């Protein structure tokens, strides 16, 4: 079974803090994704990566950056957390170009106070 893990289920941070959300997958998947989910807005793509050290902006990259130094790990960074970044963050991975089937992690519910 594909396993996608995220570093925290719940996280509370203060405005202005730098926040790291970690995602690890154990199936040698090429593609990894970060989404956020908000009531009434659904799931929106923040960033994705098709390979190590490669990244592409999604729909809402502002205020975020990402890092993919190793194939299995994709980090989402909030450089200076703000209250409007309070959300559920979901990481996903998929095998590669032959199939786009995505597997999701359990999610991190981030609250910025």
């Amino acid at each position: 079974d594909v396993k996608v893990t995220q570093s925290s289920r719940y996280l509370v941070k203060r405005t202005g803090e730098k926040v790291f959300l970690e995602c690890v997958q154990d199936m040698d998947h090429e593609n990894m994704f970060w989404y956020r989910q908000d009531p009434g807005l659904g799931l929106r793509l923040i960033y994705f990566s098709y390979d190590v050290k490669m990244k592409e902006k999604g729909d809402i990259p502002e205020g975020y950056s990402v890092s993919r130094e190793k194939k299995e790990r994709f980090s989402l960074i909030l450089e200076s957390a703000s209250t409007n970044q309070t959300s559920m963050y979901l990481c996903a991975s998929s095998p590669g170009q032959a199939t786009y089937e995505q597997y999701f992690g359990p999610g991190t519910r981030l609250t910025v106070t």
Partner: protein
Amino acid sequence: GIQVEQSPPDLILQEGANSTLRCNFSDSVNNLQWFHQNPWGQLINLFYIPSGTKQNGRLSATTVATERYSLLYISSSQTTDSGVYFCGLVDNDMRFGAGTRLTVKP
């Protein structure tokens, strides 16, 4: 980009009833997935179904790519089926519908 619409937005069923959830999309795609979001927020992959029909227990899905829709069928619904069901399509990135919130009452 591709637009994804799901219907109905909300559905309330009595346990044991059957239901059909619909996903319409605005352009032809090669990939479509159905997910169930559990009460803890995790998206569970139900079907990867770019075309055709698949079945898994009480759940089945059909995608007619040429007509730009997919259907998720839930038969003999149970309270544990409650939650939000999303369809998602991959273009250059993944696009999700707004979801159908299903409530199954005992």
